[in-house]
C-alpha cells in the first residue's frame, strides 16, 4: 500500500485539530473505504453507513490518534474491523451452507465479445455467490491483505480452516469464471 505524499501532512493537520483536514481526508479516501466494506458486506447502503462511521470515529478521536502506519492502512484496518463487528452484531452465522449454484450458464457467453463492464459484474456475481463464510475469509485475504493468522483471530476459527476456505473459494471461482478467465487476464494486462 503506497502512502500518498499528502497523507503525512494531512495526518499532522488532523492531529492538530484543523477541521479542513477531515474534509480533505474524507473526500480523498471515502470511496475506496466504501468499496473495502462492500467487499465484506455486499450491501451498498450498509457499506456507506459503515464507511461514514469510520471517518466519524477518526474525526472524534483525532486528538488522541496514534497512527504508526500510513493513514490508508489505518482506515483500512478500521473499515475491516467495523465491517466484521457488524457481521458479528447481525449474528450472521457462517454456517457451512451449501455453495450457491455457480453460474454455469455463463459458459455460453465465452464466444462473445465481452465488454469490460460485463466482465466486472461477472467477477462481482461470482464472488458474491460464494458461501458467506468462505467469501468473507477469501476477501479478507485477497483484498484486505490480512494474514491467515489474523483472519483466524478475527473470526475465531483455526488458521487451517482459513486455508481450506481460501482453497475452496479459488476452486469455486475458477469454475464460475472459467469462461471469462482469458478475457479477464487480457484485460488486466491491458490495464497495466
Amino acid at each position, binding site marked *: 500500500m503506497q502512502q500518498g505524499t499528502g497523507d503525512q501532512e494531512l495526518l499532522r493537520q488532523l492531529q492538530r485539530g484543523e477541521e479542513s483536514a477531515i474534509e480533505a481526508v474524507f473526500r480523498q479516501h471515502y470511496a475506496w473505504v466504501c468499496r473495502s466494506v462492500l467487499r465484506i458486506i455486499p450491501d451498498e447502503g450498509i457499506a456507506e453507513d459503515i464507511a461514514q462511521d469510520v471517518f466519524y470515529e477518526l*474525526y472524534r478521536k483525532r486528538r488522541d490518534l496514534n497512527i504508526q502506519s500510513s493513514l490508508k492502512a489505518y482506515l483500512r484496518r478500521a473499515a475491516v474491523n467495523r465491517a466484521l463487528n457488524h457481521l458479528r452484531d447481525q449474528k450472521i452465522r457462517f454456517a457451512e451452507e451449501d455453495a450457491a449454484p455457480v453460474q454455469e450458464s455463463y459458459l455460453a457467453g465465452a464466444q462473445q465479445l465481452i465488454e469490460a463492464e460485463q466482465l466486472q459484474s461477472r467477477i462481482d456475481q461470482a464472488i458474491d455467490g460464494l458461501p458467506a463464510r468462505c467469501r468473507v475469509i477469501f476477501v479478507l485475504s485477497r483484498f484486505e491483505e490480512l494474514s491467515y493468522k489474523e483472519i483466524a483471530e478475527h473470526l475465531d476459527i483455526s488458521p487451517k480452516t482459513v486455508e481450506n476456505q481460501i482453497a475452496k473459494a479459488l476452486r469455486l*471461482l475458477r469454475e464460475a469464471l472459467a469462461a471469462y478467465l482469458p478475457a479477464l487476464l487480457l484485460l488486466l494486462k491491458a490495464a497495466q
Partner: protein
Amino acid sequence: MDKHDQEIWRAIEGYKSGFQPNTEAAWQKMRTRMAADEAAAPVRSLHRFWLRAAAAIVLGIGAFWAWEASTASEMAYATGPGESLSVELPDGTQAWLNQNSSLAFKSEEGARRALFSGEAFFQVAKDKERPFLIVSKGTETRVLGTAFNLRAYPEEPTVEVEVAEGKVRLSEPENGKAVELTPFEKGTYNANEGVLGKKQAPNLNGLAWRTGKLSFRQTPLSTVLTDLERFYGVDILLTDAALSHCTLTSTFEGEALEEVFLVLSTIFEFKLDSSAGQYVLKGGRCNGKELTQ
C-alpha cells in the same frame, strides 16, 4: 497456490471496483453529524470552538483578550446545511439558528457574551445589569433586552441586524463606529468598504427565514427581488433596470417560488426565463402603467 489459482487471484482484482458512492452527499451528511456533535457536547469541545469561531469570524482581536479569562457558563451550538436549531441560553435568551451557523455563549458578571457566525433570530432576555454582547465578523451587537435578526455569514461581505423589538447598538469597535437601531430598522456593516449604516426595514423580511412570511408594502421591485433571492436561495436577474423602481404591495406565505413569479408576472407583465440556475425577468411595465423612457 498453483498457476491456475494465481490466475484467478489476479483476475478478480476488480471486485466491487464498479461501486462509485456519492462522496459529496456523504460529506454533507458527515458535516451535519460533526455539527450535531458540537451542539450536543458543548463544554468538551468549547475551546476548539472558540478557536474555530475566532478564525471564521475574523473578529476584532482587541475586544477578545478578556474572553478566555473568566468562566461562568459556557455553551456552544452549531447547525449544518439545511438545519436550524432553537436554543434557550442559560440567561433565558432564545436564539433560533438558521443553517450553517454557530453560536458560543458565556455568562459573566456584568455582561453576557456571545461569539456568532451565520444567521439567527435572538429574543434576548431582559437584564439591565448585564448587557448582551454579540461579536461577529468584526462587529459588536449590544442589547439589553430585544428581539432582532443577525446575519453574519463568513462568505458574505456584510453583517446585518434587523430589529423587531427594543433597541440595538451595532458597532465596529476597531474604528469606533456605531449605529443605534430601533424597531423596523436595519443596520448594515460592509466589511469590504468599512461602511456602517442603517435604513428602514418596514416589513422585517430579514426574519422571513424563520417566520416563512415575506411582506411588501410599496416596496421597490429591486428590494423585492433581493428578498426573494435570499429567501428562496436563487439568483434573479431583472433585465430592464427601469423596472427596479416599480413598487409592490403583497404578502407571500408558504408559496412556491413559481407561484410568486406568477403573481409578479401578472402585475408587471414580464416574461420569465430560467436557465443555468438563474431566473431572468424580461420586459414588463410598472403596475400596468406603460413605461416611458
